[in-house]
C-alpha cells in the first residue's frame, strides 16, 4: 500500500510540470508588456531605463530560463504580487480555498445522499413508473445549464418567496459561527453544484445495482434468511458502490470546475470567483496562482480517489 501511494505520488510530478508549463506560457501569451505595466507606462522613461527594468525583472533572459526561475519560485508557493490588490497572489487564493472546499464538500454530500438512493430505488423497481421518472429526471438534470438553474432558484426562493439569501456566505453583521445562517447561504449553491453529480450517481448506481443483485452471493444472503433490507443495504449496495469510486474522478473535476460559474451566480467568495475576476482584471499573478492551486486540488482529489479505490476493492493489486 505504501509503495502504491509513493508511486502514485511520483506520477503527479510530470502532470504538475505540464500544468505549470501551460500556466507559464499563458502569462507570456498575454497581451501587453509587463515592463510597461511596471513603469505605469511612464512617457518620460528612456529606452535605457526600460531595458534596465527589463533586466532587473529577468525578462531579458531566454524563455526556458525564465520558466525555471518562475517555477522555482512557484514551488515555494510564490506567484508574485497581485497587481490589483498589492498582496501576495498565493495568500489571496489560499484564503479562498476553505470557502471553495466547503461548497464542494457540501455538494458531494448532497450527491451521495440523493443520487445513491435514487439509483438503488430505480434498480429495485426496474421498469416501473418510479424507474422511468428517475431516468427522465437524471437525463434532464444533466442537460440543464447549472447557472441557469441557479438563477431560477434565486428568482423563486430568494426573490419571490424570500426564504433563502441569494448571495454570499454570511449575512453581514452576523457572527462567524452562526451555523444556521451559513447553512441557509450554502443550500442553494451546493444543490445547484450537485445536480449533475446526482444525475450521474443515480445512473451508475442503477446499472451497478442491477448487476450486483443477480450475483450468487445475493441469492445466498436471501437463502440464509436475511431480511430483504439487510440484503440490499449490506450486500448489494456496498458492492455496487465500488465502481462508483471510478466515477468520482469526473465528478470531482466538475465540483472544482463547475463551481467557477456557480460561485459567480451566488457571489460565493471561492477560488473560482477570484480567478474569474482576475482574468477580467488582467491580474495575471493571481490568475496563475488560481489555476495552479485549483489544479493542485484536482490532482490531490484524483490521488485520493485512487487510494480510496484500492482501499475499498481488495481485488485491485497495488504491487
Amino acid at each position, binding site marked *: 500500500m505504501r509503495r502504491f501511494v509513493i508511486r502514485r505520488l511520483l506520477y503527479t510530478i*510530470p*502532470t*504538475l510540470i*505540464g*500544468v505549470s508549463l*501551460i500556466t507559464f506560457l*499563458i502569462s507570456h*501569451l*498575454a*497581451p501587453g508588456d509587463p515592463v510597461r505595466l511596471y513603469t505605469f507606462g511612464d512617457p518620460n522613461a528612456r529606452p535605457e531605463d526600460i531595458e534596465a527594468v527589463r533586466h532587473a525583472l529577468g525578462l531579458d533572459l531566454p524563455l526556458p530560463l525564465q520558466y525555471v526561475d518562475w517555477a522555482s519560485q512557484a514551488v515555494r508557493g510564490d506567484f508574485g504580487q497581485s497587481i490589483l490588490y498589492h498582496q501576495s497572489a498565493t495568500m489571496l487564493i489560499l484564503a479562498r480555498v476553505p470557502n471553495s472546499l466547503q461548497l464542494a464538500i457540501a455538494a458531494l454530500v448532497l450527491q451521495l445522499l440523493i443520487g445513491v438512493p435514487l439509483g438503488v430505488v430505480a434498480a429495485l423497481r426496474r421498469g416501473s413508473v418510479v424507474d422511468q421518472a428517475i431516468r427522465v429526471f437524471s*437525463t*434532464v438534470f*444533466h*442537460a*440543464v*445549464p*447549472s*447557472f*441557469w*438553474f441557479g*438563477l*431560477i432558484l*434565486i*428568482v423563486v426562493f430568494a*426573490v419571490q418567496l424570500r426564504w433563502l439569501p441569494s448571495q454570499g456566505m454570511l449575512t453581514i453583521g452576523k457572527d462567524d459561527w452562526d451555523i444556521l445562517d451559513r447553512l441557509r447561504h450554502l443550500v442553494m449553491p451546493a444543490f445547484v453544484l450537485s445536480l449533475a453529480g446526482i444525475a450521474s450517481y443515480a445512473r451508475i448506481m442503477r*446499472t451497478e445495482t*442491477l448487476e450486483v443483485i443477480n450475483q450468487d452471493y445475493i441469492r445466498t444472503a436471501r437463502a440464509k434468511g436475511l431480511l430483504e433490507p439487510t440484503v440490499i443495504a449490506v450486500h448489494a449496495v456496498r458492492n455496487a458502490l465500488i465502481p462508483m469510486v471510478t466515477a468520482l474522478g469526473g465528478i470531482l*473535476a466538475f465540483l*472544482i*470546475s*463547475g463551481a*467557477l*460559474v456557480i460561485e*459567480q451566480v451566488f457571489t460565493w467568495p471561492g477560488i*473560482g470567483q477570484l*480567478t*474569474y475576476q482576475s*482574468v*477580467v482584471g488582467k491580474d495575471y499573478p493571481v*490568475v496563475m496562482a*488560481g*489555476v495552479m492551486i*485549483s*489544479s493542485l486540488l*484536482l*490532482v490531490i482529489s*484524483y490521488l485520493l480517489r485512487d487510494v480510496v479505490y484500492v482501499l475499498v476493492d481488495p481485488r485491485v493489486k497495488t504491487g
Partner: protein
Amino acid sequence: MASAAAESLVAGVRGSRRASAGLWSDAWWRIRHDRVTIAAFVVLAVLVVLALAADVLADHVFHMKFEDQELLKAYAKPTLDPLAYMLGADEIGRSQVVRLLYGGRVSLAVAFLASLINMTVGIAIGLSAGYYRGVWDDIVTWSVTTLNSIPTLYLLLIFAGLFTPGPPVLIAVLGFLIWTGIANFVRGQTFALREREFVTAARTVGASQARIMIRHILPNILPLIFVLAAIDAGGIILIESALSYLGLGITPPTPSWGNMLTNAASYFVRAWWLVVSPGVMIFLTVLSLYLIGDGLRDALDPRLRGSR
C-alpha cells in the same frame, strides 16, 4: 419474474428475426422503433431549421431584425400583438424571439464545429497513440493527464480571456482543448483492436500502417464515436453558455443563448420571462443531443443491449 422471462424470450425472438441484418441496418431498424430518440431527432432538426431560417422568419413573420430597438417597449411582457414580442422584449425593446433565433445560429454553429474539431483531433491522436505506442503514446498520455488536471472552466477561462472572444476564436478554443475524453476512448479501443487477428491479417498481406488504422481499426470504433459526438456537442453547448454567461464567450451585440441569459439575469427581478426562454432553448438542445447519444448507444452497441 415470469413476465421478465417472457419479455426476454420475446426480445430473443425479435432479435433472431433481425439476426441477418448488418450493424448499420440493424441500428437503423432499432432507431426507427425508438420513439424517444426519434422525438429528440425531430426537436433538434426543428431547432436547426429555425436557426437557419432566422433571416426569413425575422423579415417575413416577425418584421423585426435582431438589432432593432424600441425603447418604449422595453421589458414588454410576452404578447401575440405584435408577434415579435411573443416571448417579450429585452431592456431596450429588442424582440426576444428573433434574438433567440439568431442566438441559436451562433450557439449551434459553435457546438457543431467545435465538436467536429474535437472529434478529428481526438480520433487522430487517440488512434495514432494506441497504434504506435512507445514514446508518442507516453507524450499523448502525459498531455491528456495534464489537460484533465486543469479544471475545464479555468482552462477555457484563461484562454478565452487571452484572445478577444468571437465565434471563430471560441470554436478554436473549445475545439482544441476538450479532445482528451475522445482521445482516451479511441486510444483504449485501438490498444485492444490492434492485437486482433484481422489486423495481423491485414499486416500480413502488406497493408500500410495508415491503411490499417483508417480502413481496419477506425470502422470498428466508429459507431461509438457517433455516440460520443452527440454527447460532446451537448456538453459544448453547456460550456459555451457558461463562458458566454461569464462574458468570455460570444460577446454582445452578437446574440448567443448564453449571453442573452447573462443579459436577462441582470434584469430578472423586472422581467423573469427573459431568463426562462434562452435557458429552455439550451436545455432542449442539450437534452435532444444527449437523448440521441443514448439512443445511438443502444442501437449501435450490441454489448449494452438489454441493460436498460
